[in-house]
């Protein structure tokens, strides 16, 4: 193992240029949601446990070694105030009684604040600390405390207490609030706008090219199309989900072929007479062009469409058949989406050899993208099948095509059977005069889903048993290279779709050794019990940082984990709960009794759906 460093010595400018162009900085939090939630907890004076939680997380940020000084000092001051009986009336053993110690702590924190924050703004030692502090509006009192503390007597506790409050106020106005506003401003809205703009530009150009091929407009040269396409692809690589969601939105919008892309900025309105077929035809050239360059796009788009159908169906079910007013368009939309899925799948199939050539020529990353990942196809198939249970032939067809792509003959055979079965079912329904009533229709539907649920449950059971077996085999060595891997950013887990990866859930979970031993019957039993225990202990858990009490609920969630993970190891949707907490704003928060009940019920259904 011997290699020269020289290979890497690029001009240093190169290193910084790349960083600057994106304007990125290393931060210790995994998302701004995490930051924001910690900000919220840190300043929630009324709830010591959530303050304690925020302080703990910030000390974790410190351990990553790149914490902004303002965050660091804010946490220090808040932590000291939490130990001061003056600020926190009800204190356990936490309180620090010695006034001397308290003033020293406050004084040190304030000195670090003044020095730390000022040092960053003061380029050279040309101006004094006081002048520099003044320039960024640090209250004079803090500068005086720093001066007194370093050169004279220790300032009185009364003074430093007051100063600590001023310091927090100033930190809020200097760092926390402006930082919060900066994130807001940048939100996804701008990004979506840009994506939309580029997509429409490309669509417009292609349209013009198609219709007036005789006299090519200068405005829409081939160059412009390539440029727009490149821009879209670039956006896709950095934020695939946004691109796809905008694309989907655009495709679903009223598309009148005459005025594309005209005035599409207005709100999404859908008329009865739109024809998705037209809409799709309009966008097809773009899709083809984009997917030739980025085959992933079709997969991501398909998934987004399926997701949309799923959410729509969920809301329709929730609202019931009677709530027609606002949702009259929903069945239509679902129909359109299903059609879209069918088309995409058809495209996927044709794409395969294309991808081959294109990437082989490209050379880069070819090994990974040559064929569509099996796991991804499985996932898509699963979803198509699940959604097609509501008499959606288009999705059923899509599922069939995907199965064919996977090349599993036995599977295709079974699917064909299932397909004919459901056609048969609905034919009966339609031939029967009484079935026009929604009641019997509903009934057959329920029956259908029940049957499916039973099948799926059986599958889960099998998988659990299988999982137990395979777990025990692999004990030889702990350093094993992951079997499947997909490029994704460092710090993230690979995503079955797209190249963006997914954020990991980093909360600590204990070993599931105990669970692994139990048989599947017991699993279901403990699962049930778990819910009860969870409910009983949830109240105590609410504001109690003591982790021991979380244990029970934790075990319970571990079952969920195993249920969720499929053979390929892709769990695309993170579990909704862990340790009796809910992921809210990127952070695990404790939830109430009733909420837990609801979740438990929902999660059960979720497992069933997910497991196939």
């Amino acid at each position, binding site marked *: *193992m*011997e*290699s*020269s*460093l020289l290979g*890497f010595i*690029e001009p*240093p400018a190169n*290193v910084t240029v*790349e*960083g600057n162009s*994106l*304007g*990125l*900085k*290393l*931060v210790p*939090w*995994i998302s*701004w949601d995490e930051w924001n939630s910690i900000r919220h907890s840190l300043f929630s004076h009324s709830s010591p446990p959530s303050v304690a939680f925020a302080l*703990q*997380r910030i*000390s974790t940020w410190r*351990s*990553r*070694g*790149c914490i*902004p000084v303002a965050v660091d000092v804010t946490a220090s001051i808040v932590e000291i105030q939490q130990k001061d009986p003056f600020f926190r009336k009800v204190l356990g053993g936490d309180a620090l009684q010695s006034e001397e110690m308290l003033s020293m702590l406050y004084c040190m924190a304030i000195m670090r604040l003044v020095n730390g924050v000022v040092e960053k703004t003061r380029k050279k030692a040309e101006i004094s600390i006081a002048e520099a502090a003044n320039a960024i509006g640090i209250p004079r009192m803090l500068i005086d405390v720093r001066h007194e503390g370093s050169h004279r007597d220790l300032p009185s506790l009364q003074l430093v207490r007051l100063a600590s409050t001023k310091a927090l106020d100033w930190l809020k106005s200097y*760092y926390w609030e*402006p*930082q919060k506003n900066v994130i807001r401003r*940048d939100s996804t809205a701008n990004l979506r706008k840009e994506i939309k703009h580029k997509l429409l530009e490309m669509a417009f150009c292609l349209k013009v090219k198609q219709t007036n091929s005789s006299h090519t407009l200068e405005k829409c040269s081939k160059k412009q199309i390539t440029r727009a396409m490149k821009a879209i692809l670039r956006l896709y690589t*950095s934020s695939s989900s946004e691109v796809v969601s905008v694309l989907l939105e655009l495709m679903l919008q009223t598309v009148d072929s005459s005025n594309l892309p005209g005035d599409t900025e207005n709100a999404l309105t859908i008329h009865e007479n739109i024809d998705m077929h037209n809409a799709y035809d309009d966008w097809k050239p773009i899709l083809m062009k984009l997917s030739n360059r980025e085959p992933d796009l079709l997969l991501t788009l398909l998934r987004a469409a399926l997701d949309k159908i799923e959410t729509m169906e969920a809301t329709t079910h929730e609202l019931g058949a009677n709530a027609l007013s606002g949702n009259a368009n929903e069945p239509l939309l679902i129909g359109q989406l299903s059609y879209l899925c069918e088309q995409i799948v058809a495209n996927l199939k044709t794409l395969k050899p294309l991808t081959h050539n294109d990437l082989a020529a490209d050379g880069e990353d070819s090994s990974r993208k040559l064929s569509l990942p099996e796991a991804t196809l499985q996932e898509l198939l699963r979803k198509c099948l699940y959604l097609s249970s509501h008499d959606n032939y288009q999705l059923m067809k899509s599922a069939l095509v995907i199965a064919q792509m996977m090349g599993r003959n036995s599977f295709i055979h079974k699917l064909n059977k299932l397909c004919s079965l459901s056609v048969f079912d609905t034919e009966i329904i339609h031939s029967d005069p009484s079935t026009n009533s929604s009641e019997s229709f509903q009934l057959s539907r329920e029956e259908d889903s029940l049957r499916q649920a039973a099948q799926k449950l059986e599958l889960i059971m099998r998988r659990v048993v299988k999982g137990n077996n395979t777990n025990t085999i692999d004990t030889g*060595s*702990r*350093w*094993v*290279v*992951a079997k499947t*891997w997909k*490029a*994704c*950013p460092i*710090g993230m*887990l690979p995503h079955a779709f797209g*190249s963006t990866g997914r954020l*990991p*859930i*980093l*909360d*600590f*979970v204990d*070993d*599931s*050794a105990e669970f692994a031993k139990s048989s599947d019957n017991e699993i279901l039993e403990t699962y049930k019990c778990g819910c009860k225990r969870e409910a009983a202990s949830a109240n105590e858990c609410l504001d109690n940082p003591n982790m021991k009490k979380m244990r029970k609920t934790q075990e319970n969630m571990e079952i969920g984990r195993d249920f*969720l*993970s499929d053979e390929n190891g892709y*769990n695309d949707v*993170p*579990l909704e709960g862990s340790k009796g907490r809910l992921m809210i704003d990127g952070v695990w928060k404790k939830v109430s009794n009733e909420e837990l009940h609801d979740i438990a019920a929902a999660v059960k259904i979720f497992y069933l759906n997910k497991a196939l």
Partner: protein
Amino acid sequence: MASFGDNELQFDNIFIPEEWSDAADSVATTWPPPVAFVCGPKNSGKTTFSRLLVNVLLQRYKKVAYLDTDVGQTEFTPPGLLSLTTIDKITSDLSIPCLKTPERCFFFGDISSKRDPKTYLAYIFALYDHYRRTYLLSNGGSPGNAGVPLVINTTGWVKGIGYDILVDMIKHISPTHVVKIYISAVNKNLPAGAFWLDDGNGAAATLIEVNSARQDYFNRSVLVQKDACLLRDLRVMAYFRQCFPSDMKITTIKELSRALAAHPPYEIPISSIKIKHLHCEVPKSEVFYSLNATIVGLAVDSEGSENFPDCMGLGIVRAIDTFKHVVYVITPVPKSSLQKVDLLLQGFIKIPTCLLQVQGCISPYMSADVLP
């Protein structure tokens, strides 16, 4: 290529003053094999002198041991490691460092000894004791290993705590030679004479004082002001470059970042390894928040003995899956050495940000909209 004349050494890209080659010669010609301690302020040329000395020694000895105590600007390893390396080949270019697999090393986990001087010294003493046990005949080393001189390179931190650490090191090691390099800024230099002796007691080492090469009469500069941070990043990147076969086409940082993002990592069950932060107390519930996307030392837990955990190399914790109970680690350490590794040591060795922001694969820890 290096060419050796009668009395002078000429290397590519670098000019070695006569004073230096004389000093190196005088160390090399002593018997028993010398233990040379090289010290001096920042940018005085300690590392360059050490490289020269190693080369001169290699003309007489088959092997030379090198104790690297400069955790911020390491010689043969990525930063943050304290290492003992044996060298058997002359390096032709004195201006660049190259990576070598150390014989023994410990992960200190920071780029300066100031965070934990006690542990820092303990690691260095352990490495030195290892050298003595293995290579010094009088201490029971095997005859085959006889005659391996040692070169000790140090940091440029020669004031305050840094000075105290330096003195402690010399006292424990009692080198045969102390090479002290002076720079023109007098107040930055180490004290004149045998500064480590108190009241005439202590190791009687031969003191050799030389001037920084910067002051040579041609007025040619040997030393370029280094961007320590950039060099560290480059060293880390060169280290992780070794994850890939050397014939693989990776010449730019971008290509490396892309390759690392796509590289299938090791998948280690969380239950089979211990995780420890060297410099912070991280609550158990927060361990993964702390660990994700950081550089760790891959160490062998010494199971209760007073030995320190041996470090096999560095790894990047590229992801953690708490549902699957696994940690994903990228490392160039050969699989055979990895099987012993059961301890991940976290420190403050920063992962180079250019590895985190390759286009299309931007780490969540790289964020836009950060207030300046």
